[in-house]
């Protein structure tokens, strides 16, 4: 269970509402800084002062949940994250953290449900997927223990200790930028000139991502084509054009949760329709060509909707069918 320590940190929420409440955001940033430095009591003080004037503030409450977790006040941390899921059901991070806390208590069934909620609100949320995998593995091991009478009656306690050890083990460690899915504030500014990167395998062709789609438009090589398709896919999404967006997915596309194609499409349509506006940007794209008809594109996806702003790593697997590039798999994380 050592892997299940992926608490979502503050970042995604740090930009939440930050434009309209700059001063508050500053205070939250300070609190976050203190938190990352391990000064939990001071961080809590700041958070509480924000909450005194704005008791519903999502980022302050989120940070409070994290501080409580670090302080070992699991019950109140659970309470804090639970209330966040009630007030902001569209945010996956509180669900994820709730799951981590439940898992720490050995309440895997509850952890599983929370992660499923996180994924429902955000199907490409890699952390939740990873954590869910870990939860299944943990539940499996619990079942095996019962089946084979392995002497691990205190397995849940061990898990909890493992998590706490991780959180407190090294102060520096807990101050690390937590997850690829939760960038720091600075990351949210589009990077001007992405450096060309080299793919590790010599068999594949590394291609530097063009900063703007038009650079690839006239391209005739497959790598450029597939980059073009990736940009067009992001554009369709940004335009909230569900039909066009879904047309990028091949018939044999693997739905993330293994659900039926129609169920997945329904979910996507709903999610695309809901926000007033969506802006999806593809950055740092890297193309790996397996052959002229199969390509994998890894990139940083920045997603801004009216209510949510996230950046995550994403990989799209493309296949060329009848001259058209189509997506067969979409993965979050690297």
């Amino acid at each position, binding site marked *: 269970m050592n892997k299940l320590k992926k608490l979502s940190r503050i970042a995604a929420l740090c930009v939440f509402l930050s434009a309209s409440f700059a001063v508050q955001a500053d205070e939250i940033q300070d609190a976050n800084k203190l938190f990352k430095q391990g000064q939990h009591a001071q961080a809590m003080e700041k958070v509480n002062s924000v909450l005194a004037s704005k008791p519903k503030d999502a980022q302050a409450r989120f940070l409070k949940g994290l501080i409580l977790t670090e302080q070992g006040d699991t019950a109140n941390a659970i309470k804090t994250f639970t209330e966040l899921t009630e007030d902001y059901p569209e945010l996956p991070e509180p669900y994820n953290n709730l799951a981590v806390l439940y898992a720490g208590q050995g309440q895997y069934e509850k952890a599983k449900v929370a992660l499923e909620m996180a994924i429902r609100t955000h199907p490409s949320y890699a952390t939740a997927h990873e954590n869910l995998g*870990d939860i299944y593995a943990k539940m499996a091991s619990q079942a095996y223990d019962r089946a*084979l*009478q392995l002497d691990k009656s205190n397995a849940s306690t061990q898990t909890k200790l493992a998590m706490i050890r991780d959180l407190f083990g090294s102060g520096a460690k807990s101050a690390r930028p937590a997850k690829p899915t939760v960038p720091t504030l600075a990351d949210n500014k589009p990077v001007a000139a992405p450096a060309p990167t080299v793919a590790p395998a010599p068999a594949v062709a590394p291609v530097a991502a063009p900063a703007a789609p038009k650079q690839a438009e006239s391209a005739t090589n497959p790598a450029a084509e597939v980059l073009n398709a990736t940009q067009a896919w992001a554009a369709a999404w940004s335009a909230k054009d569900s039909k066009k967006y879904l047309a990028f997915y091949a018939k044999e596309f693997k739905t993330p949760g293994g659900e039926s194609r129609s169920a997945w499409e329904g979910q996507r349509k709903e999610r695309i329709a809901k926000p007033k506006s969506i802006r999806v940007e593809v950055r740092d794209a890297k193309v790996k060509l397996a052959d002229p008809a199969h390509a994998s594109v890894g990139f940083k996806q920045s997603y801004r909707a009216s209510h949510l702003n996230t950046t995550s790593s994403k990989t799209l697997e493309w296949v060329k069918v009848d001259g058209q590039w189509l997506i067969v798999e979409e993965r979050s994380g690297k």
Partner: protein
Amino acid sequence: MRNVASLLLLGSFALPALAETPSRDLELALAKSLQAVGNSRLDVALNEVDSLLKANPNFKLAQLVRGDLLLARSRPINDFGDAPNAPKDRVQDLREEANARLQRVQQQQPVAVPKYLWQLAPGQRHVVVVDTGKSTLYLFENVNGEPRYVADFYITQGKKGADKAAEGDQKTPLGVYFVNQHLSRDKLTDFYGSGAYPISYPNEWDKRLKRDGHGIWLHGTPSDTYSRPPLASNGCVVLSNDDLTHLGSHLQVGITPVIITRQMEWSDEADRNDRAALLKEIEQWRSDWSNLNTEAYLAHYARDFSSGSVDLPAFAQQKRLVNSGKSWIKVKLSNLSAFPYPNQPGLVVVNFEQDYESNNLSNRMLKRQYWMKRDGRWQIVYEGSA
């Protein structure tokens, strides 16, 4: 995960309807789950196994299947019971239980009568037949002398299988036995579960063959264990606690036969002829005795007859002496039962109530005889009180 079904050497299979007992439902649910695995419906398989575990969290085999199904969501699994660091022998035990239970599920409800039930006494309301080859205990009801199938249960036998011969050989005996006693839960340690029914091993035939050992019981399972693997006891026949309780309500101490065979044989035409011949011979024995036709009466006893303590010459001498002192005798037999011995062709255990009257002595007793067919003729090889 596709491997789970194939490792159990199972393709798809039909699930026949069988007598309903709680354990049967459980077994069916388990089979459905494994069938779903075979059909690549892991979600269905997990639902099925989850719901059966809700009722019976101590069903270890189901926990193992659940472990595999959950792990398969996290990573590909390669083997049945793919737990890291799983003790191989325990996984193997559970795999054998899975096989035994799935074979049971595919069994049709018996329509024929086991060949071991030639005649039931009116007072024997039920009879138990254990087929160790199928890890199954069958319960039959006596309906006007005809055995009728009631239910069957998964059982555990000795670690080394069946055909007990010696103390400590960890085998389950094969033969015709009777329930001797009932020990309730409060008289037992948790290990025996909901109760125990000691049976009459070693019986007269076992003793004659110098088979020893003791303490062969039908009993339940510890409170943290729903069922045990097929080969796990020291010779006892172990049932899940619910099944033992269910079965126990039909057992009569001192009366209910428990016949244990390695491979069930069913009654057929030849069998019925044999039965008629034996019953006729028993009647002949009774009438020869009643008529004080002493030499004809003694001719029913085999050369190697033994009452356990007395051999044929001594027995014959004593009978001749007794009969010579009688002017008349009357012998009546009632409540006769006859159970052919499993794994020992031509041997039948006969029990009856003997009502003996004579000019100078009368008595009533329960008698047991072992009849053996030799050169086409039924003869008594053992006789004693039951």
